[in-house]
């Protein structure tokens, strides 16, 4: 209300404003997410973890098996999807090269909140067979990771286990509702900035462009 009064000039003085729609929606969201609805959001998020289709390395084959008919991760309400705009989970499959790190970060920035990340394979923990190499980064230097899966490569069952662990994390700690409210993650501070990751491109990457 007060915002609009400041904005309005003398001619609009007599009219009655309901309020700025955006601020009203923001206030309503914050009020609603505190109570039981927040818990419901967590429950709903736990059973709709859609990973984006981003294959960085060889563990992607195991991902294919994990969502296939034999291991069937779709029974946890999870479905691999192609577009980062409609997904809320990144599974970093294996090693990330310095050139690919830029793509991982851009994909992460394009996803809406709340969003989560799983790092898969020995390469994502400490480098694996590419340890001490000149052209790799660890995924935890690029995006904040919630769950790690060890193994080279991990079995599809291990991927299912990671999904279940992430569901537990979501429902016990009630983080999804929190991150919707703040639209940011606190654990982003130790991560390499985007300008460094994408510096080799020599071009400005505008992440705020929306594809309508």
């Amino acid at each position, binding site marked *: 209300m007060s915002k609009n009064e400041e904005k309005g000039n003398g001619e609009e003085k007599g009219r009655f404003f309901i309020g700025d729609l955006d601020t009203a929606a923001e206030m309503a969201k914050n009020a609603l997410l505190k109570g039981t609805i927040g818990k419901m959001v967590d429950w709903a998020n736990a059973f709709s973890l859609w990973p984006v289709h981003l294959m960085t390395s060889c563990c992607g084959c195991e991902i294919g098996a994990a969502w296939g008919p034999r291991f069937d991760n779709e029974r946890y309400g999870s479905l691999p999807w192609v577009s980062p705009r409609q997904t809320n989970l990144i599974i970093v499959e294996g090693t990330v090269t*310095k050139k690919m790190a830029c793509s991982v970060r851009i994909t992460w920035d394009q996803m809406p909140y709340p969003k989560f990340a799983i790092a898969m394979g020995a390469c994502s923990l400490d480098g694996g067979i590419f340890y*001490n*190499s*000149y*052209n790799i980064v660890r995924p935890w230097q690029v995006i904040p990771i919630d769950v790690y899966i060890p193994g080279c490569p991990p079995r599809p069952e291990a991927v299912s286990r990671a999904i279940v662990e992430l569901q537990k994390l979501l429902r016990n700690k009630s983080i999804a509702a929190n991150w919707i409210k703040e639209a940011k993650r606190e654990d982003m501070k130790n991560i390499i900035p985007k300008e460094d*990751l994408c510096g080799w491109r020599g071009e400005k990457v505008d992440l705020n462009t929306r594809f309508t």
Partner: protein
Amino acid sequence: MVGEVKKLISIQDLLKNVLKDNVISIEQNKGYLDVLVPTEKLVESAKKLKDSGFDHVKSVTAIDYIAKKQFKITYHISSYLNEELSKYIIGLSTIINRDNPHLPSLSRIWVSAEFQEREVYEFFGITFDDHPDLRLLLLTPVIAALKPLRKDYVVKEESDDIEVDYVAYNTNKWW
């Protein structure tokens, strides 16, 4: 086995007939032939080999002889159309100096050599003269400047401590 060796010898004779004076030496090992030619006659011998039926390059690679201060560049060539030649992969090699390394490009003769030469260029820092499009292919500019596949490039030992890594990544231009 004996037949194969005979065929290999016949191909060796063919190479000698085609290239004549250009050949410095022919090395033969387990079904593989490596022809060493001088750098000035590389383009000429490549043209002759293409006319005799070798129609594509399978790979281009460089070997760093750091003690002799030399690079050995090898083009692995073979054939799709000629049935007799398609069973073998022939190496066409040349030796160049290690400081200021450059040699004529063969991508005008064999088009399939173009991307491979770009890869050699960024990993070894070897320049191919009159290459149509000599840009970086796989590496970022900072890594390519290190010439990572040369023998004198040493990777820095990483620490086990994550905090130390953070400091290192924050201070250096790491990409």
